[in-house]
């Protein structure tokens, strides 16, 4: 499986963030790395939707299309030692952490070669190797879990922080408020990121609370907070980096609201009739991949041919991922009884 650019570039860029005269703040490698990550996620999910329509993928499928700049920014703004936990719209986060698209596609196909042996599906990729604590399927459940992951980092006195991600819907759960309160009380190294894509399934942010600037919730707990445009990967990177620095400096938790947009429905079964075509068109004009593409070309960071090379490599990679998933076996039915308990001789009721 081809990985066009594997390197994390955060360290290199921290010293080169001064904007040059043409608005180029980062290295060419960084821009192309972001571009590649976003293309990988976009193409992976477009293909996954196609596979869903062919019944190769079943169950829930919540795609991230439109939100990819956030995943891309995470590859540069935090370190690979920082744990990340998120919700069920999570393909992009798993991929940005380094899970291969082949393993992810096989997981969606329910194959034993999948990232989680066909046991998790679309909502549940996990990888200890990549410090990816998964895709949680219960809205807001990962907020206290991420706080607890951070508690363990604090307990062991590491320099790591836990990136705890959730959507605008989860911001209305009690779990958020309980977690914010305790994280501040104990000064835990946790970065809360609300990916505000405007809709909790079919309910707009405006219909869920009078507090529509979600990051303002931080004020209730004395937590530092900010909002950023999540369609612009540079701004998103800088905002996450600033938040991470704040936390690593021991100044406590940080709440970043990243304003983004999902082009598709909540899941494949959602025709998204709760929003207008005009709204969707408006956001598509601000597509994070287009914005970055324009930036790269306008500022002559790379040529069209170089971008085309990345697109072609991704296309090949995704084709190979689908082939890998197609050709892999389903897990044996007997694996139903594995991974329920670590106790090897657990006496299941089998009558």
């Amino acid at each position: 499986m081809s990985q066009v650019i594997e390197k994390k570039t955060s360290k290199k860029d921290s010293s080169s963030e001064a904007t040059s005269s043409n608005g180029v703040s980062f290295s060419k490698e960084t821009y192309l790395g972001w571009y590649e990550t976003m293309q990988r996620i976009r193409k992976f999910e477009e293909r996954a939707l196609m596979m869903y329509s062919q019944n190769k993928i079943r169950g829930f499928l919540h795609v991230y299309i439109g939100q990819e700049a956030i995943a891309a920014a995470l590859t540069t703004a935090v370190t690979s030692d920082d744990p990340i936990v998120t919700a069920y719209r999570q393909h992009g986060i798993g991929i940005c952490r380094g899970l291969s698209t082949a393993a992810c596609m096989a997981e969606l196909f329910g194959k034993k070669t999948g990232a989680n042996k066909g046991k998790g599906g679309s909502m549940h990729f996990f990888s200890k190797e990549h410090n990816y604590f998964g895709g949680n399927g219960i809205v807001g459940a990962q907020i206290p879990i991420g706080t607890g992951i951070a508690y363990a980092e604090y307990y062991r006195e590491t320099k790591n922080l836990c990136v705890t991600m959730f959507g605008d819907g989860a911001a209305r759960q009690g779990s958020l408020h309980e977690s914010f309160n305790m994280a501040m009380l104990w000064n835990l190294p946790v970065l809360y990121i609300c990916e505000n894509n405007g809709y909790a399934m079919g309910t707009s942010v405006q219909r869920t609370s009078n507090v529509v600037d979600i990051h303002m919730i931080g004020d209730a707990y004395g937590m530092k907070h900010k909002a950023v445009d999540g369609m612009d990967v540079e701004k998103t990177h800088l905002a996450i980096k600033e938040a991470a620095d704040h936390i690593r400096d021991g100044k406590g938790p940080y709440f970043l609201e990243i304003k983004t947009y999902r082009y598709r429905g909540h899941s494949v079964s959602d025709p998204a009739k709760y929003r207008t075509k005009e709204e969707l068109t408006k956001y598509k004009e601000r597509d994070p991949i287009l914005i970055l593409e324009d930036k790269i070309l306008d500022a002559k960071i790379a040529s069209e041919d170089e971008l085309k090379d990345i697109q072609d490599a991704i296309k090949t990679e995704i084709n190979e991922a689908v082939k890998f998933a197609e050709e892999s076996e389903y897990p044996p039915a007997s694996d139903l009884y594995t991974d329920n308990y670590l106790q090897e001789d657990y006496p299941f009721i089998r009558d």
Partner: protein
Amino acid sequence: MARELTLRDALNEAMREEMQRDDRVFLMGEEVAEYNGAYKVSRGLLDEFGPKRVVDTPIAELGFAGIGVGAAMNGLRPIIEFMTWNFAVLAFDQIVNNAAKTLSQSAGEFSCPIVFRGPTGSAGQLAQQHSQTFESWMANTPGLKVISIVDPADAKGLLKSAIRDDDPVCMMESEQMYGLKGEVPEGEYLVPIGKAAIRREGSDVTIVSFNKMMEVVKPAAEELAKEGIEAEVIDLRTIRPLDYQTLVNSLKKTNRMVVVDESWPFAGVSSEIAYAMQKYAFDYLDAPITRLNAADTSLPYAPTFVEEYLPNPEKVIRAVKEVMYINA
């Protein structure tokens, strides 16, 4: 050498020893630190281990249970104390949807070695919301293990096993029994999860129970002995996984069984046992298995209601005579 300890102090010793042994173990919950525990189970632990390992939380069961789950996934071994399991209802999402399922949905990438513990069941006239049992709720969930015990020595050994266990464990204690005294061995010992204990041998009838109902069953068995009926008394100790073998072995000897269970009757521990016994020991049964549960109602406040609701020794004796076809 053994000394007499209360259940409260036996549990305290278990946590203290395990925290001394493994610095990944920490205790978190309401009033566990500066107040020394709502029921003084954690007395002295803050002084010995400090505020990072003995952590007072705000009243936020869902939040601190989830913090425990995250900490367990990330390499620690939390003990999460609920002031009572009645309040753990607020945290069921973290216990049932997360602790129990982390290993499966991550296909073994992440485990969740955590202990959720606290008292369960009625405890005097505490009325509807503070009088429930949760063994059958939690034991219904694959991924969890469930211990329910009041015997001080076994409670200590089981809690130590639970803390060392790599799977999530729910430990159910009893408010009214924290002062219960028993002989507790000195030094290091463990009691295995998943094994019942025969508390009294007998050949006429098997009485199965657990948690504080054991203290109802014991005097009933003594009364029955005066009438020449020798009951074999089994303390389940662990609810999930249930030790079916010990029950079958006893039933093969006595041919009659009464299950005394403070839970509500529907789909409870007693129904599970009755099902398993008819399945695996049908030919040995001389009478239908009878169960004695709490009433199929909420528990109101007045003493007359408590008396009517709960099993007691007289009701146990009546149930035994029923399975022995003796007219009371």
